[in-house]
C-alpha cells in the first residue's frame, strides 16, 4: 500500500498551519501491520488520508486481510 502518489495536496494542518510532509507511518488492521508513506503534519503528526486512498488501495487491503 502506497499513499504517496498524492504528495501535492491543498490541505494544511489547521492547528499548526504547516504544510504536510510525506513520512513513513505505521498502519494496522486485524493481523496486518504495515509501514507506508503518508502525508502528515510535521508538528502534531496528524495523518492525512484522502478519499481515494481510503476507498481504493486501503479498502482493498482491508478486504484482503478480512478474507485471510
Amino acid at each position, binding site marked *: 500500500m502506497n499513499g504517496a502518489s498524492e504528495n501535492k495536496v491543498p490541505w494544511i494542518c489547521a492547528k499548526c498551519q504547516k504544510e504536510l510532509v510525506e513520512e513513513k507511518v505505521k498502519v494496522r488492521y486485524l493481523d496486518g501491520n504495515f509501514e507506508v508513506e503518508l502525508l502528515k503534519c510535521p508538528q502534531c503528526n496528524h495523518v492525512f*488520508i484522502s478519499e481515494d486512498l481510503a476507498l481504493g488501495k486501503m479498502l482493498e487491503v*482491508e478486504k484482503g486481510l478480512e478474507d485471510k
Partner: protein
Amino acid sequence: MDLEKLLDIGNQCIHSEPPVCVASCPVHMDVIALVSEIEKGDFKNAYKLMDSKIPFARLIGKICDHPCETRCVRKDAGGSIHINELEKAIIHFGYSSPKKTLLLPKQKGKVAVIGGGVSGIVVAALLDKKGYHVTIFEKSDRLGGRLWDYEGEILDKETIKEELQMIEKIGIQINYNVEVLEDDLPGYMDQFDAVYLGAGHWEKGHPIDFDTFKVDDLPLFIGGQIVNKNPSIIFSVSTGKRAAISIDRYIGKISISASREREGSYESLLNYKVVDVEPVDPVVKESDIYSEEECIKEAERCLKCQCNECIKTCSHMQKYNITPDAYIRKINHNERVILGTHFANEMINSCTECGLCKEQCPVGIGMKDIIHETRESMVARGKMPPSVHEFALRDMEFSNSDSFSLVRKQPSKEQSKQFFYYPVMAFSQYLRGLYKGSGKTGYLFYPGCQLSATHSSYIGEIYKHIVGTIKENEADLDVGLYLGCCGAPADWAGRQDGMNDTVAKIKSVWEEMDKPTFILACSSCSSTFAKYLPMIQTISLWEIFDKYGLPEVDIKKGKRLLNIHDACATRHDTKIHESIRNIVKTLGYKIEELEYSKDKTKCCGYGGLVSYANKEQAKSFQEDRIQESPNDLLVYCAMCKDSLVRDNKRTFHILDVLYGKEDNNVILQQMPTLSQKLNNRKKLKADLLKEIWGEEQTMDASNKYNFVLNISKDVYDIMEKRYILVNDIEKIIDHSRKNNERFYNPETSNYLARLKLENVTYWVQYEEKGNEIDVNNVYSHRMEVVEE
C-alpha cells in the same frame, strides 16, 4: 460444521445427472455437447466428440439403432430429437481422415480376438491403442461381420473397406478363414494373456459376469451378440468397449470390478418435465440427409435437459454462475483453509437465505440452512469479515437500547379515567377498550424495528385500533406494547451470541408479562420467533386486522390491480398469505398473483443482510422481482418495501393502502434515509410514551451542538451508500472544532476532520458558515493509523 455430511448433501444434487438420451445410450454419447457443437456450426468438433465415444464412428454412427431417440423427453413435446439423423449429418459434414499415427511398440501383452465382427473389431482397435499385441481370428475372408448387411443402403462399400483397412494398417494381426471351436479355446488361453470371444453365435453357454464380461476365473471375455441376445449394433459396440476395459485391467493386474457402475444403458435420476415446454415438430429433411441449416434447427429443439430448478429462480446462484453441488464443494474448501485466502466469503454472504431453492429442488436440497450454518461457523472461527454485517448489528443494538426499546402494559383504567366521559367514549373504540382494562396483558404488540423506522407514523394508530377491536372481542385481555428488534440481523450474520442475548431478553419480558400472545407486524420477526421462541404464541397483525376488523378507512371498490409480493420469511405461513389477500380484497383491489408467490415467493434482496454484504447482488434480486411484476406491487414487510420501491416502480406497504391515500401520493414512494430511520425510532418511542402513557421523556437533545448541518441530496446519497449517519458526522465535526484537530484547504476554505468511532475512522469534509455547516463529503476506512 460437519463437512462430510455437507458433501453428502452436495452429492445428492442431480444437476450433473445426464439426460435420458445419454443414460440410455449404451456408449453414453454426449448428446447435449453434440447438439451444442451443431448449433455453433462446428461439425468437425461434433465429429470428434462422436469419434471419442464410438470406434469406427464413421460407420457405426450411421447404422446405430439409436435407443436414445425412443427415450428422448421431447417425444411428448413435438417429437424426439432426430439424434441419428444428426449423427449422419455430422459424419457427412464433419469427418476428416485421421492423421497418420506412429506405430507404437505393442508390449503390454498378447490378446486374441475371436470373431472380426462389430464387437471384435471394437475390442481389437481399443486394445491396440492401449499397447497390446492383438490378433484377430476370423472364420470368413473379411472383417466387419454385420456391417456388410448395410452395404449399398446406408453404407457404401468403399467406406467400409477404407475403415476396415485401418485395422490392418495400425498393425493388428488378422488371420482369415480360421474357425475357432469350443475345444480350441483352452489352447488360445494358453497362448495369449487374454481371449475375447465375439463370434456372434456360440453353442456352449459360459457363465459370464455381466458387469465385466469375464468368464469365471478364466482369461476369457465374451461380448457382442452372444451377450446381447439382440441384433443391436450399438449394444455390440458397448459390450466390446466394456470387455476391452476388463481385459486391460485383467492383464494390468488391477481390480476389474471396481467402479463399473453405470456402464451401458442405465436410468438417469433426472426426471425432466416437459409439461411447460412448447411442442415443436421435428425438422423434416429436404434430401436424404439433413443440411447444415436443418441440423441447426433440429439441434435447437433439444432441451439440453438438466436440473436447473433452483438456479433458474435464484439471482444469487446465477450471479455466481454456480450450482449447489459446486457451491457445497466451495464451502467445504473455504471451511478447510487455514492459511490463505477464503475466496468464498463474499459468495457465502451474498445468499439471501430466502429458502426458495429448497422449494424448487426435486430432491429437497436447500442452501439456506447450509449457508446459515456456514456463517455461524465463520463467526465461531473468527473468519467472518468484520466489516460485512457491522452496520446492521449496530442498528440492532440501537433498537434494543434505551433509545428505542420499550415495554408497556396497556394504560390502566385508573390512569385513563379523565377521558372517560360521554361524547368522547361514544366515538372512540380505543377509549372503550381502555375502559375495559383488566390489567392482564393477553397480547403484546411487537411492531419490530424496521416497520417502526419506516412507518413510524402508523404505529400509534395501529396500537389504538387493536386495543379497541381486541377489547371489544376479548374483554379480559389487555394489549401491551413492546418496541425492539427480534434479532434477525444477528441471526443472518451468524452471530449466535447476539441472537441468544436477544432471545433471552424477549423471553424474560414475555414471562414478566405473564406469557401474552405477541402480535407481529414484520415477516422477519415471524420467522425469528418461530425459530428461536417457539414457546411464545404469536399472531400476525394482518390476521388481527382480518379477524377483528380494519381501521376506519374510506373503501372505494373497483380500484386497480395489484401484484402481491409475499415476504420470503413467511413462505410457509399460509395464515399470513390468506389474511393479506383478504384485507386487500376487502379494500377493493384486484389481485393478480405473481408466478413466484406464497411458498414459492422470491426474496426482495434484503434477506440475509445481502444489501450490506454485496450491494450489486441485492440489486439483482430487486431487479429480478420488479421485472416479474407488471403492476403496482403490494408488500407487507418494511424491508421488502425498502428494497422494491423505485422511481418508476410503485410499491405499497399494506399499511400505506390501509392508512394512506395511496393514489398519487409521492411521499409513499420514498423511503427514509438511514439517519432518518434512526431518528424515527427515537421519536416514535418518545411520541408513544407521551401520547399513550402520558410520560415525558427527557430527550437527549439532538441539538446539543452549537452548529446546524446542511446536507445536500448528493451528500445524503453518499452517506447512504457508505453507511454513515448524521449523528456520527455531528460527533466528528464537534470533536474537530473543539480541538481544532483538522486539515484546512485555503483554496476552498474547506475543513477535513477525522474521528475513529469504534472500529471505523470517519472523515468529514465541511465548510463553516457561521454556525451553519455545509457537509461536502464523507468517507471512512477501517485501517488504523498508529500516530505517535
